[in-house]
């Protein structure tokens, strides 16, 4: 055993001589309490500073509540914090109710804005693969409001889009409006919109004019389309924030994005972020459905809702409940490089404001 430790010491010394100081034993990690006593006790004092922490869990699992609690603690210590809101879902009222000092919180709302963000091809953050082209094609279809759709719905409208593929010939739709335009203009009419002439040219189908309102799913295309642009904006903003420095907690809320899409972010991005906050007091907190930063995360905490509380005081009401009062959350440490061991559990109660 003594020989082993001696060998390790020799090895470390040689690494240090070569300038590989990172192989030295880590210094004591400073911890930031998250405001939940039960969880702080399990984590040995709180979340590790200067590291990437992931809070994952499904919807309604309490991950956002825990993030707000951490922000409240940080802003109470008068630290500046940032919230990168990928799906523009932050509720300032909940934030204030959680005790967050709003003037100390920078809120960045990603989304489809008027700014000309780079397209996916120009973005260095996503891994390029064949899947990308397939996904981009799929994103052109009306996306569902929720995670999955029935295959029957996916086929809806295909026959109208590519009639020649299915062997159906649709009669050309005559549009009075288009004819008037063509006659008035006289020249410079698109070939597809020209009036039928004598000759051998086969009649072309005119584009159909939509007379009815678009399908309901289309109205939410902006929200449910593939989130590359929003993710790109979020990663760029986070990069700028972390390299600017001086932040106590930076939250990247990926909770509204499918974990399948989030996993397509290059791992090198998370390494870059982790490198940027190393040896700084900043905590980079990722909220998501599943862990995506993998080995870059110093702490991965999986949240799960265990039981919800409904006030049964007003039993005269038809449903028997009058108010929703909160739920119990279980936090499970699935990865930790700091103090606590994996599979540590903590349970705490959240309350409605």
């Amino acid at each position, binding site marked *: 055993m003594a020989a082993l430790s001696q060998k390790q010491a020799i090895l470390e010394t040689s690494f240090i001589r070569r300038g590989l100081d990172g192989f030295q034993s880590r210094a004591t990690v400073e911890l930031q309490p998250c405001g939940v006593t039960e969880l702080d006790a399990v984590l040995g004092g709180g979340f590790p500073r200067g590291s990437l922490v992931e809070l994952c869990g499904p919807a309604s699992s309490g991950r956002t509540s825990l993030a707000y609690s951490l922000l409240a603690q940080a802003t109470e210590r008068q630290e500046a914090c940032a919230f990168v809101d990928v799906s523009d879902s932050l509720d300032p009222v909940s934030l204030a109710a959680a005790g967050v000092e709003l003037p100390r919180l920078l809120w960045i709302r990603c989304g489809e804005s008027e700014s000309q963000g780079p397209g996916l091809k120009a973005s260095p953050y996503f891994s390029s693969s064949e899947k990308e082209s397939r996904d981009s094609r799929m994103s052109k279809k009306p996306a569902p409001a929720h995670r999955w759709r029935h295959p029957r719905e996916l086929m809806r409208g295909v026959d109208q889009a590519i009639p020649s593929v299915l062997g159906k010939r649709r009669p050309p739709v005559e549009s009075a409006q288009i004819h008037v335009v063509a006659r008035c203009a006289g020249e410079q009419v698109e070939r597809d919109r020209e009036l039928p002439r004598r000759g051998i040219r086969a009649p072309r189908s005119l584009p159909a004019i939509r007379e009815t309102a678009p399908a309901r799913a289309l109205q939410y295309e902006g929200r449910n389309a593939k989130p590359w642009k929003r993710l790109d904006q979020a990663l760029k903003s986070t990069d700028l924030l972390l390299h600017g420095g001086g932040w106590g907690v930076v939250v990247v809320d990926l909770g509204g994005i499918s974990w399948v899409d989030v996993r397509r972010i290059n791992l090198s991005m998370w390494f870059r972020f982790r490198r940027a906050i190393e040896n700084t007091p900043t905590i980079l907190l990722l909220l998501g459905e599943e862990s995506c930063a993998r080995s870059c995360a110093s702490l991965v905490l999986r949240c799960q809702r265990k039981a919800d509380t409904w*006030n049964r005081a007003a039993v005269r009401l*038809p449903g028997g409940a009058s108010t929703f009062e909160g739920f119990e959350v279980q936090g499970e440490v699935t990865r930790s490089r700091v103090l606590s061991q994996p599979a540590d559990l903590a349970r705490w109660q959240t309350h409605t404001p």
Partner: protein
Amino acid sequence: MQAVVRLEPELQGKAVAILAGAPPLTKLFAVNREASNLGVETGMTKGQAEAFAGILWRWRSASQEATAHAALLDCAWAVSPRVEDGARPGGQDFSDTVVLDLTGCEKLFGSADKIAQDLRRVAAEVGFVANVAVAGNPLAAVSAARGFPGVVVIPAGEEGGHIGRLSLEALRLPFAFVETLHRWGVRTCAEFAALPEVAIVERLGQEGLRWWRLARGADNHPLIAKGFPANFEEHMDLDAPVELLEPLLFVLNRLLEQLCARLRMHVLSIGEIQVTLTLERNDSRNKEPLVHIRTIRLPVPGRDSKLLLKLLQLDLEAHPPSLPVTTVRMATVPVKARSRQLGLFLPLSPDPERLEITLARIQGTVGEGRVGVPVLLDTHSPNSFLQSRFVLPELRERRSGTEKQATVAMRIYRPPLPASVEFQDGTPVLLGCGGVRRQILAFAGPWKRKGDWWSETVFAREEWDVKVRTLHPKGHAEAAPRGEEDIVLYRVYKDLRAKRWFVEGIYD
């Protein structure tokens, strides 16, 4: 000449001529020493001057001269609060001259010679090659500064002797006066000063008397101090319209550096900066200038020209001018420099100067109005918040830590999702949204919220908290999570005015 060269330092050491006047009467207004050595003289027509090779041409700009004169005044204010503006409204004779009162300044800055050397150095910082003279009265100092190059200190009472050695041309007398005096046999200032005063007035008038006093270097007129300016401006006329941002940034950089140098003399910082770009008009009939104005307010006063340039660059990238730029004017509102006590135990916060650039870059990424601090409005209306500019708040006394409970957070859907709710015996049983129906397992409500009935932002709604299990189709049933993970808590509401249901958000 110096008004042009200070904004274009690359012209130093080259032969430069300044043109003035409308074509075809364009003449050389000023030439520098290098151009004179080539044979170019003031007063030549442009056609004559074009015969000389290697001359760089610039057009005279009155606004550029005015800003250069303001910069010269700033140099003087850096030493003394009592500064007389040399420019006279009647003519251009003294527009390159300022007079300052050094009485009492010796105790602060040292001897008169040291102050003069400092003044010359300060003027060099803003791009001027200045002659500095110290004398017993203002006129003697002006004459000595015009006649002697570099720094001259004339002891009190010896003004006449020193100035008398100068030639008449050194005082920059008008050509008609010089010609007359030469005919009289007068060549130097001493000879001119020796002439009787009454005879000068009789023959040369009041103008001649003024020059005679200047040649004598003896005048007891009081110094008329000028008030301190409220803002600082720099102006530059471009030779050719600039279409791209990058060359425009070079111009902005020069103006910013000059402004920062001037403000540094007064220990002031920039609180607000306004850039006015005059655009080229395609329509020649309309003479009204077309301007593009951008204003940047700094939350923390700063004087770092690189930082300000970056802010201007990001702002102009977001709001580019629509036409080529012909003139650039930059005005700043000076404020007192920030004083801050640093400490070892201050809470973590970003550097204010770097933060501004970071915010501007993020704004360029996510769009305008999407970066800031959430501010709650004093109303019960849903989604009642604003997003204001992020400014680091002042530090306050830390309060004793109070035990806080973890509160349930809400994730909002923007815009809310249209939904349908089916009731059975007065209780909600099914929630439909996005083509999927969900069974309601538990609910609480309704909570009614109404308000703003007197305005256009009227709202009336019934809110419910519901717990639903997602109804998966058969194909997804096996892969779907079981148990509590499959159950979600929503807040839904019915818009009582539109009679429609929406999902507002999800408890998380």
